[in-house]
């Protein structure tokens, strides 16, 4: 167990270091003068003196490798730097945005799980309806873009029915449409995975013996089979969380909701290096932590994994 924790922690540290390195050099490939980007981009017409001062202030006159080592040491101290565009501490900025995106993604994950459980049990009941629910999930999960779903929701619930605000206002009402937009495609995907493992579980011996004991169909499903069916979906939740962050870029943009995704899009377009690095590290960290957590849940639920 200790060995497992240590190796996972080392692996996580490696992934974060590699992400930081990748972003550092990747953003240097962007054409244009970083000093100019700091002063507001090519349109700002900054004077040579101002550019020179910025280069000195930000250490941009140093060789690239020296800058890299300095940047890594700053990151180790937990210093994410100052946003070029917003001229504020990145860590503080991310602190505010993080909670907004976390609320959105976690709520979406919960809602998606609830939908997926219902859909999966429905789809395995068999018959025409079950098959239709099954293939419907596939199509929704794979073929409906977040931005279009969001637009349809706005058309229906904001323009036509006037129930909900078309942009994400603070408060629970403003969260409904963004959460549904993220949750529905994910529910299709998770439901699909659950349906398959549920179908497997329903054919296994322990279900037969539960039926032989006279357990009701609902009892068999909800007390026995669903636990097995949930396992692969739990493992996939780490991946799902990562995909929710990608989805958040689109959804936060459509609903004009402040968050990590929307600031990432802005930061990439204006080449705000510290901000991009910060968002990338936070989302990579979240992904790594969620993956470790789901692996741990798997190990608790499935003793066979612990022997390895």
């Amino acid at each position: 167990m200790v060995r497992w924790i240590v190796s996972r922690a080392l692996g996580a540290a490696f992934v974060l270091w590699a992400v930081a390195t990748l972003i550092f050099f990747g953003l240097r490939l962007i054409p244009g003068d970083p000093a100019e980007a700091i002063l507001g981009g090519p349109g700002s017409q900054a004077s040579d003196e101002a550019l020179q001062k910025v280069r000195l202030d930000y250490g941009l006159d140093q060789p690239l490798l020296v800058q890299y080592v300095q940047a890594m040491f700053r990151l180790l101290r937990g210093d994410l730097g100052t946003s070029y565009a917003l001229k504020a501490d990145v860590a503080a900025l991310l602190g505010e945005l993080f909670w907004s995106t976390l609320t959105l993604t976690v709520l979406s994950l919960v809602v998606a799980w609830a939908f997926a459980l219902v859909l999966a049990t429905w789809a395995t009941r068999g018959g025409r309806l079950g098959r239709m629910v099954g293939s419907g999930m596939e199509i929704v999960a794979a073929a409906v873009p977040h931005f279009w779903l969001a637009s349809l929701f706005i058309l229906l619930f904001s323009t036509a029915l006037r129930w909900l605000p078309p942009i994400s206002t603070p408060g629970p009402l403003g969260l409904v449409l963004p959460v549904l937009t993220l949750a529905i495609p994910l529910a299709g995907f998770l439901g699909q995975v659950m349906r398959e493992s549920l179908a497997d579980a329903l054919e296994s011996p322990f279900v037969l013996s539960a039926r032989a004991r006279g357990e009701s169909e609902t009892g068999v499903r909800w007390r026995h089979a669903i636990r097995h069916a949930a396992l692969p979906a739990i493992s996939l939740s780490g991946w799902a969380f990562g995909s929710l962050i990608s989805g958040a870029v689109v959804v936060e943009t459509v609903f004009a909701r402040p968050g990590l995704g929307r600031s990432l899009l802005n930061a990439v377009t204006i080449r705000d290096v510290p901000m991009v690095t910060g968002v990338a590290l936070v989302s990579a960290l979240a992904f790594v932590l969620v993956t470790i957590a789901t692996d741990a849940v798997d190990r608790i639920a499935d003793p066979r994994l612990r022997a390895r």
Partner: protein
Amino acid sequence: MSLPETDLAQPGLASRPTATRPGARVTVGEVVAIGVLALLALAAIVPGLFTSVDPLAISPTEAFQSPNTAHWFGTDESGRDVFARTIHGARSSLLIGVAATAIGMALALILGVMGGIGAKPLDYTVTRVGEVLFALPGLLLALIFIAIVGPGMMTATVAVGISTAPGYARIIRSQIRAVRTAPFVEAATVLGRSRFFTLRRHILPNALAPIFVLATLGVGQAIVWASSLSYLGLGAVPPAAEWGAMLSAGRSYISNAWWLTVFPGIFIVLAAGAATALGRSMQARTRQVER
């Protein structure tokens, strides 16, 4: 960009067939999926078959007409015919989907084959690289690439390809690993075949069949992601007739011109849905052969 990439290559896609039973004939779903794809491909190659209207011709006096007999899908803010634009949009959207998948698959094959047949240290390195790329949201990879090269349709295509590659590479690697330990590969080694011969003759053909299915599923995903990039203003730019770009332009008029938002979106769902449905049934069929 729904699910996903990377968010795009969903790990769960390699799963059990559902509707198709062993020995099943062609199902209604398959006919519909192939029919939709054939029609869209036809629209992409000869759009003139479906509409004779110029998708770029503006006519300000006819702006914002709701769907009617002259303009089936209505007109946009410059009086352009939305039906003609949607039909002409099939070309760029399908092309982006296919090209992005090809790029992603090519990158993934290089990584996956290196990891799958390489020596342990190489496999270890490739796996770690994959892990790092996987930890980044797929869209972030695409965004950084677009920031480096600049927005545009080509860039968006390559960006979608790059962001899908880690997911594919993961699947290809494990596929090759699985085939490599098969008895017939051992037999070839015992017979003194060279490593390259064994790879080309025995491992790749067996590992690639499922990958072809994966690519079909991937085209659907790539269409969705590429349209999302256009929607964010990073791919095709208006007035180009591309579904994502059309939706992006229609976003400003969502409260008074619903048709600008509804119709191009339906076509995205049709194209991506048909590719997905077809991929799924191909998956089901290859499984039957194996049994």
